[in-house]
C-alpha cells in the first residue's frame, strides 16, 4: 500500500461523526469486522472481508478466525481481551500489584462470560474499554490542546475553518462527553505456538455527551464504502476494518412517536432555560409613591463649525440639588475653590431655597419624620441610604459627572461635507427625581459642553477654549438630538495674539458660568446682583391675635441674571444625543397597570359584556306576508315603459341585481362611445352637461342611426377607438366582469362578430331583455367598425405584429 493511500486512510480515521440519536442509546448496536492482511496476500478490490476464508481462532472463540474477526457490540458493553481475561480471572477478589482491590464489576462480567461459554472464554480479539475502565487511548492523550491566545480581530479564521471541514471549531461549544467507549483490537504474536498478546490497536471511539450527542470516530461506514485500514506498528501488518450501524430499525409509528418525544423534550428544555430569566426579578429599589427614577443616556456625537484642526471637549452633567444621584458630588469644579460648593445654596436665588423647603415639606408628608430630618441634616452632597441605585449604590443629593473626550482631528465627512470632529462619547446616569422637585418650579439636570482647540500640542495643557454651551435635559422619556450652540469669550488684540501663537485663550473659570453663575467670582463680572435684605420669600407678620405668622413676601424682588460686560462670539455647535427612561415606583406602576387594564380604549376586553344567560327580550311574532294588489298604477306602468325604452341613461338605469349585470351595464361604453368622449368637439359641446347627459346624447345618436355621424367622428377614430376598447376589455380585473364580457364581440373575434351580426339581423323579440338588446346593438356597431377597418389597409393592425 502506498504512503499516500495510507495517509488518506489515516485522515479518514480522524474524522468524527456527530449523531443525535432519537433512539435510546440502549438500542444502539455497532457491528465491527476486522481483517488482517498478510504480506503475501493480494486483496482484490470490491471483495468484502466477510467473504474471505476464515482461519481458526487462536483461542478457539466462536465466531473468530485467524485472519478475520467480527463482533456485535452494544453501548457500554465490556468485552475483554486475552490479557484482561487472564488478569481478572486470576485475581478475582484479590489485590493487584499496587495493593488496590481488583475491579469486581469487571470480574463479575467475566464470570458471566465464563458461565455462558462453560469456562472456555479466554477473551476476544475485538474488545472494548468503557467508561468504567477510565481508559484514554494514545491518540487522545497525544492530541494538543490548542488555546488561541492571539487576538483575532476578525472571524475569518473561524469561518474558513468551518468551511474546510475542521470540526474542532464547530465542537468548541459542545458539552463535555459523559460516557466513552473505545473499541480496540488485540495484536498477537504469531511466531509463538501459544497465543500471546503483544499489544493493542485502536479502532473506534464513541463518546456520548450530556445533551444526547453521540460522537463516533471514525464515522460509521455505509455498506458500499471501502473499509478503514491502518498499518500496525506492533506487528507490521495492515489491518482493514469496517464499522456499521447494526441497530434494529424502528417502524414508522415508533419513529413518529420518538420524534414527537424529542420535540416535547426540546420544548421543555427551552422553557426551563427561559424559567431562569422569568423568575429573575426586576430591580426596583425603593421609591416614593410619586417619585421617579430617571435614566439618562447621553452621547456627545460630534462638534462642528470650528476653524481649528484638532478639537476636544469636556462634558459635564449636573444634577440639581433637589434630585438624587450616585455620581460624584462635585468633581467638576477643577479650577475653583472646593469650598465654593456649599456656598452655592446661600448665594443662589431665594426661590431655590423655597423649592428645597417645598421638597422637604412634601417629603415629610410622604415619608417618616426621621427620614425628613435625615434629609434636612445631610443637605446636598451627603450620602443617604434611603435612595439607592439599581446596582445598590447609595445615592446622595445633587452631583456632577464630568468627563473629557479625546482630541480629534477635524475632517470633512459626507454627505454634507462639513468640517466636524467625531467624538462619540457617552455618559450614563441614574438619578431619582422626588416629587418635591416637580412642584413649583421644576428643575432638571443640565449638560455643560466646553470645546477646546489644541494649537500647539495635543497632549499639552495649552487647550484654548473655543466654545461653551449648555442645555437642560427634559424630564420626558424618549430620544432626541440637540444641537448646542457654542460661544467663547471675546478676546482683545493681545489675547488674540496669545491665542494664535501660544494656543492659550480667554476662558471661564467654571463651565457652569455659561448658564447660571453659581457664585460671584471676585475677579469676574459675572453673577447675580447682590441680594438685599428684604428680598426674601417669606416675611413675618402679626395676625389679628397679635401672633406671628409667616406669609409670602409681596415685595419680593426676583434676582436678575446679569451678564452685562461679558462679550462673546459665536463659534460652533455640538451635537448631543440623549435618551431618557423613567421608572415609576411599584405602587404607581401597579396603579397605572390597573388603570390600563380597565381602560376600554387600551384594553377592549375590559368592557363588561352582557352575560349569555341574561334575560332575552322576546322576539315579536312573525308577521304574515302582505299580498300586494295586482293593480298597477299609472306611474309604475310609465316606469316599466321607460325601463324598456332604447334610450339608456344613468338616471333611469335599471336596477342590476347581480354584479355581472352591473358590469355589463358599464361595458356599454363602446368604442364609438369612447371615440365620442375623445372628440374635442363633443367635449366642448357637452362640457357643461353631466355625465349621464353625455351618455344619453351618444345613445340617442346610436339608436337613431346605428353608427356615429361622420361629421362627429374624430380623426382616426375607428382605429383609436378599437384600440382603446381592447385595452379596456383587457384591463378588467374582476372575474365577474370577464364572464360578462366574454359574450361581447371583439373586433378580432371574427366568428363572434358573425354570430352577433346574424343575431342582430333577427327580428327583435318582445321578451328580449334590456341587456341582450344592448349587446345586439353594440355588436352591430362593432361589425360596422370592423368593416371600415378592413377597408383601411394603409395602417397595419397592432395585433398583427
Amino acid at each position, binding site marked *: 500500500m502506498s504512503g499516500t493511500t495510507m495517509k488518506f486512510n489515516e485522515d479518514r480515521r480522524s474524522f468524527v461523526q456527530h449523531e443525535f440519536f432519537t433512539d435510546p442509546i440502549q438500542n444502539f448496536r455497532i457491528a465491527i469486522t476486522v481483517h488482517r492482511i498478510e504480506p503475501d496476500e493480494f486483496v482484490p478490490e470490491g471483495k468484502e472481508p466477510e467473504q474471505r476464508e476464515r482461519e481458526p481462532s487462536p483461542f478457539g472463540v466462536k465466531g473468530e478466525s485467524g485472519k478475520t474477526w467480527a463482533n456485535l457490540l452494544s453501548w457500554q458493553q465490556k468485552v475483554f481481551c486475552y490479557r484482561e481475561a487472564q488478569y481478572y480471572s486470576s485475581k478475582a477478589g484479590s489485590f493487584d500489584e499496587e495493593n488496590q482491590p481488583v475491579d469486581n464489576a469487571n470480574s463479575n462480567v467475566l464470570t458471566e462470560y465464563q458461565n455462558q461459554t462453560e469456562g472456555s472464554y479466554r477473551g476476544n480479539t475485538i474488545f472494548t474499554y468503557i467508561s468504567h475502565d477510565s481508559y484514554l487511548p494514545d491518540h487522545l492523550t497525544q492530541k494538543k490542546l490548542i488555546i488561541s491566545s492571539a487576538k483575532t480581530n476578525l*472571524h475569518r479564521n473561524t469561518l474558513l475553518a468551518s468551511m474546510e471541514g475542521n470540526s474542532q471549531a464547530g465542537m468548541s461549544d459542545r458539552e463535555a462527553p459523559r460516557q466513552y467507549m473505545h473499541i480496540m483490537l488485540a495484536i498477537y504474536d504469531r511466531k509463538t505456538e501459544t497465543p500471546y498478546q503483544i499489544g493493542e490497536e485502536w479502532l473506534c471511539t464513541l463518546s456520548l455527551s450530556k445533551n444526547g450527542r453521540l460522537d463516533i470516530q471514525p464515522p460509521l461506514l455505509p455498506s458500499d464504502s471501502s473499509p478503514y485500514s491502518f498499518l500496525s506498528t506492533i506487528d507490521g501488518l495492515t489491518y482493514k476494518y469496517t464499522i456499521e450501524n447494526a441497530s434494529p430499525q424502528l417502524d414508522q409509528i415508533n419513529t413518529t412517536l420518538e420524534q414527537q418525544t424529542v420535540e416535547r423534550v426540546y420544548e421543555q428544555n427551552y422553557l426551563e432555560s427561559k424559567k431562569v430569566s422569568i423568575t429573575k426579578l426586576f430591580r426596583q429599589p425603593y421609591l416614593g409613591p410619586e417619585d421617579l427614577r430617571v435614566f439618562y443616556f447621553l452621547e456627545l456625537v460630534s462638534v462642528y463649525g470650528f476653524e481649528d484642526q484638532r478639537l476636544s471637549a469636556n462634558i459635564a452633567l449636573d444634577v440639581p440639588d433637589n434630585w438624587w444621584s450616585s455620581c460624584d458630588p462635585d468633581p467638576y469644579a477643577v479650577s475653583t475653590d472646593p469650598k465654593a460648593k456649599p456656598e452655592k445654596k446661600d448665594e443662589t436665588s431665594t426661590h431655590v431655597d423655597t423649592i428645597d423647603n417645598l421638597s422637604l415639606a412634601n417629603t415629610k408628608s410622604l415619608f417618616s419624620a426621621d427620614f425628613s430630618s435625615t434629609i434636612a441634616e445631610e443637605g446636598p452632597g451627603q450620602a443617604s441610604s434611603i435612595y439607592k441605585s439599581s446596582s445598590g449604590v447609595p445615592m446622595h443629593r445633587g452631583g456632577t459627572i464630568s468627563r473629557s473626550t479625546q482630541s480629534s482631528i477635524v475632517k470633512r465627512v*459626507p454627505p454634507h461635507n462639513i468640517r466636524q470632529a467625531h467624538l462619540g462619547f457617552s455618559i450614563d446616569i441614574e438619578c431619582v427625581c422626588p416629587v418635591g422637585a416637580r412642584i413649583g418650579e421644576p428643575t432638571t439636570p443640565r449638560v455643560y459642553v466646553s470645546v477646546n482647540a489644541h494649537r500647539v500640542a495635543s497632549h499639552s495643557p495649552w487647550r484654548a477654549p473655543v466654545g461653551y454651551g449648555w442645555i437642560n435635559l427634559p424630564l420626558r422619556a424618549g*430620544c432626541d438630538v440637540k444641537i448646542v450652540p457654542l460661544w467663547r469669550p471675546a478676546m482683545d488684540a493681545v489675547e488674540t495674539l496669545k491665542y494664535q501663537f501660544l494656543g492659550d485663550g480667554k476662558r471661564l473659570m467654571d463651565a457652569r458660568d455659561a448658564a447660571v453663575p453659581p457664585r460671584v467670582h471676585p475677579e469676574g463680572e459675572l453673577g447675580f446682583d447682590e441680594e438685599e435684605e428684604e428680598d426674601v420669600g417669606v416675611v413675618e407678620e402679626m395676625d389679628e391675635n397679635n401672633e406671628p405668622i409667616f406669609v409670602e413676601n409681596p415685595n419680593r424682588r426676583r434676582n436678575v441674571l446679569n451678564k452685562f460686560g461679558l462679550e462673546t462670539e459665536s463659534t460652533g455647535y455640538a451635537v448631543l444625543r440623549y435618551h431618557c427612561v*423613567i421608572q415609576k415606583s411599584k405602587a404607581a406602576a401597579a396603579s397605572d397597570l390597573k388603570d390600563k387594564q380597565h381602560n376600554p380604549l387600551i384594553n377592549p376586553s375590559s368592557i363588561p359584556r352582557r352575560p349569555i344567560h341574561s334575560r332575552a327580550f322576546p322576539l315579536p311574532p312573525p308577521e304574515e306576508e302582505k299580498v300586494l294588489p295586482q293593480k298597477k298604477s299609472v306611474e309604475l306602468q310609465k316606469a316599466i315603459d321607460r325601463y324598456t325604452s332604447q334610450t339608456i341613461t344613468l338616471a333611469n338605469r335599471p336596477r342590476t341585481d347581480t354584479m355581472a349585470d352591473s358590469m355589463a351595464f358599464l361595458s356599454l361604453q363602446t368604442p364609438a362611445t369612447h371615440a365620442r368622449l375623445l372628440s374635442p368637439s363633443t367635449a366642448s359641446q357637452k362640457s357643461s352637461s353631466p355625465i349621464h347627459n353625455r351618455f344619453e346624447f351618444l345613445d340617442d345618436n346610436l339608436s337613431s342611426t346605428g353608427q356615429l355621424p361622420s361629421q362627429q367622428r374624430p380623426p382616426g377614430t375607428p382605429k383609436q377607438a378599437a384600440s382603446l376598447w381592447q385595452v379596456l376589455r383587457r384591463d378588467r380585473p374582476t372575474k365577474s366582469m370577464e364572464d360578462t364580457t366574454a359574450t361581447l364581440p371583439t373586433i378580432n373575434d371574427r366568428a363572434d362578430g358573425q354570430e352577433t351580426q346574424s343575431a342582430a339581423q333577427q327580428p327583435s323579440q318582445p321578451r328580449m331583455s334590456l341587456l341582450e338588446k344592448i349587446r345586439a346593438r353594440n355588436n352591430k356597431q362593432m361589425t360596422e367598425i370592423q368593416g371600415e377597418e378592413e377597408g383601411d389597409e394603409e395602417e397595419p393592425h397592432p395585433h398583427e405584429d
Partner: protein
Amino acid sequence: MAELYVIGELVGATGFSSKNLCCRYSIVYGEGWDLHSGEATGQTQTDYAQNEMTIWSHPLDLQFSLSTILGWPKISVQVFKIDSYGNYDLEGYGHIQIPQSTGTFNMKCVTWKPIGSSKEEYAQKFLGVTPRLANDSIISNGDDRRFLRTQTSGIVYLKLGIITREMDKYGIVTEEQPED
C-alpha cells in the same frame, strides 16, 4: 420579565478613506441584562463599494431580558479595510446607544480612529500597521479619554427597530405618550 427586541440591520457606511470595508460589531450591555437570542458579536462581509456608500445590509436580531434599565445595550462597531496585501487595517471605532423608545430608527454612528506616536505614524504609512486600542471597552464606556488622540473617520448607518415587552408592568416609561 421585561424584554427588549432589536430587529434591524447594519446598513452601510460612508466617509471612509477606503472603498473596501467590512465592519465588526459587538453588543455591549450591563450586568442586569441577558441576551437570549441573537449573536452578541458579528462581522459583515467586505464590500467593494462602487460609489460613496458602502452597503453591508447585515441583519441584527437580538432579544434581551432585563432586570434593570442601567446597562442598556450599545452597539460597538469597528470598521476595517483590506489593503492590497490582504491585511485588515483599522478604519474607525464607534458606538451607538440602542434606542429605548419603540419604533424604527435610522441612526448614524460616528467613528474615529486613534493616532499613534510619530513612529507608529511612519509605520502606518510605510508598513500599513494601524494603531489600535489595547482595550476595546473604551469605545463604548464613559471613561475619560483625555490622553487619547484620534482622527475623525466616517459614519456607519444603522436601521434599528425596537420592540419592548412588559415594560409597563414595572413602571418603565420609555417614550412619552401623546397627549389626548
